[in-house]
């Protein structure tokens, strides 16, 4: 991997995933776009608000055949709260999202097939999603339980889209009784669908967790 420097402050810009176009400089919050070995500053990302998430860039997870490493994070805010979405990359190049809310986690991989379902295609075309809409994905039925308009509050690491202030998306969470999860996100770049399951932290078999001041990491997770 070639090493890059931030065009704004000159600090080294670690490249965790060369396939990802956007990276946030950890020193000056500059959002950098990479293409063909060149780097270009496209703006400044908001500083992430303080949180006590146990996940950090370089945390690993291993669940349901998914072995991946966190390379980036975006923090979303909506009218009544906020949550983290961690972007993960596996050694084979596959990518995953790890949603973090209420102390629980939703690990998903992209599932484009569901975008052909009429209800979701309708949503992708810019129409509102009906609450209680049911769809079948991966052989399971899901119900839309949670529809949120969210704005980017800040980011770090490498990400697939620009996380400048003002970047917004609409997120629809589908759930079922078995604890499976389907997340459909619509933003300026289009609509993507992600399929996975809810889990607690231990269920992710995590490695390299963040050491949170004042707390002892449980031995099972350390």
């Amino acid at each position, binding site marked *: 991997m070639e090493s890059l420097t931030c065009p704004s402050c000159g600090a080294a810009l670690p490249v965790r995933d060369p396939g990802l176009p956007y990276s946030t400089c950890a020193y000056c919050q500059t959002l950098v776009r990479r293409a063909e070995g060149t780097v270009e500053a496209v703006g400044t990302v908001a500083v992430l*608000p303080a*949180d*006590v998430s146990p996940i950090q860039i370089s945390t690993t997870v291993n669940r349901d055949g998914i072995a991946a490493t966190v390379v980036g994070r975006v923090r979303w805010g909506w009218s009544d709260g*906020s949550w983290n979405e961690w972007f993960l990359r596996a050694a084979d190049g596959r990518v995953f999202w790890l949603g973090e809310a*209420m102390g629980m986690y939703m690990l998903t991989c992209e599932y484009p097939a569901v975008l052909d379902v009429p209800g979701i295609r309708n949503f992708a075309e810019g129409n509102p999603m009906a609450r209680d809409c049911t769809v079948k994905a991966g052989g399971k039925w899901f119900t839309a339980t949670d529809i949120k308009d969210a704005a980017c509050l800040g980011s770090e690491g490498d990400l697939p889209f620009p996380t400048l202030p003002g970047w917004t998306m609409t997120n629809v969470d589908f*759930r079922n*009784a078995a*604890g499976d999860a389907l997340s459909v996100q619509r933003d300026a770049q289009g609509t993507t669908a992600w399929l996975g399951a809810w*889990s607690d*932290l231990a269920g992710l078999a995590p490695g390299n967790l963040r050491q949170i001041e004042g707390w002892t990491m449980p031995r099972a997770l350390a």
Partner: protein
Amino acid sequence: MTQPRAVICPSCGGSIEIRAAGYTVTLGCRYCGSVLDVAHEDVRLIKAYRRAVKNFAIAPGARGTLFDVEWEVIGALRRRSAESGDWQEFLLFNPYSGYRWLVLAGAEWQFGTMLLDRPENGPRSVSWRGGDYLRGDSETATTVTVLGEFYWKIARGDEARATAYTRGAEVLSCESTADETNWTQLIPLDDSAVSAAFAVERKFVGAPQRRARRNDTDDLPMMFLFALIALLAVGLVQELVSRPRVCTESTSEIIVGAPSFTTRIGTLEVRRAYQFVTISAVSSNINNRWIDLDYSLVNRQTQQSIDAYGLIEYYTGTDSDGPWTEGSTGAETLIASVPRGTYDIYLDGGAHGWPNDPSVTVKQVKPDEWTVQTSADAENPWAPPEKVTVWFTACTGGFSWGMFWLIGFLLFAVPGAMLWWRHREDD
């Protein structure tokens, strides 16, 4: 980003540390009880309160280990339903393990875990992870008090429909609001396990609290009724115990300004082991005079004396507000617990003028006879001295109104304080 974040309460200015930064959405100020929205950088006031939050069994901020995990109590709720009365819920947080609940209903503790997978509905039961849970009672739970941090929007007065499904001692609780339905698994937790983990307020340790007040929804009216009955009983007993009533009477004329003199009012027999003795003195013709009344009850057998004091004072005048009067022309003296015996009641009395005593000349003419001359009236230095007449009635028995009202106050203090306390809690 590892340091805790602090916010300033916009209502009281208190600085409050956020323990679950990034997750916390609602904060109940621990200083003034105001409910704050901390989902955004600018802390917004949801509802201002100006009263410190009343004590919970466990104070937010406490840490303890349950099921081998260290938990911090970050939020506390007091909730209420018509069916179950009041209970407390504590939100536990560990950044690596997420959230759990600790519920205290009556003296019983439960440990709650939110379900990620939802039970399958049946008509009278639900099934979850292979077990059947029987549908129990439904009730509407209202949030009464909010203290500390919560990861969702919460405020006093929030209502949720709660249904319990039981399988042995284990309960699945389903709570629904207009927006969402949450399932929580509750397992019983030993009192000692909670006490070992957290500093539990002593009054909540193993106390058989108001557990599910289904039948005695409110015992406060009964407490008032009992206090009233007890007070009437005290009055009746006092009246009965003070009997029998025997009296003696006499009249004295007291010269205003003369040195005090001694006279015998009469004789009384106290027939009980102990009795009240009441001496009332009434005067009719005094104005701007005060009469000192020193009584002595002298036991004929032992010659021991019980002393008491009375005062008649009556003043009139006119000032910028018009005419005024002060005092009264009578005085009642109650002597408590006079032992059995026969008593001579002596009075050592003196009458005085206000603002000045008339000047009086007293001459002894015979061993038992005195002449008194007053010079108050300068016009007529030979005018007869001014006398006031006092009628005395001394009786055994009597009613101590002071004692009666003191007991009344004590009897009503507890239910009255509770009524005030509850009223305070409700608004």
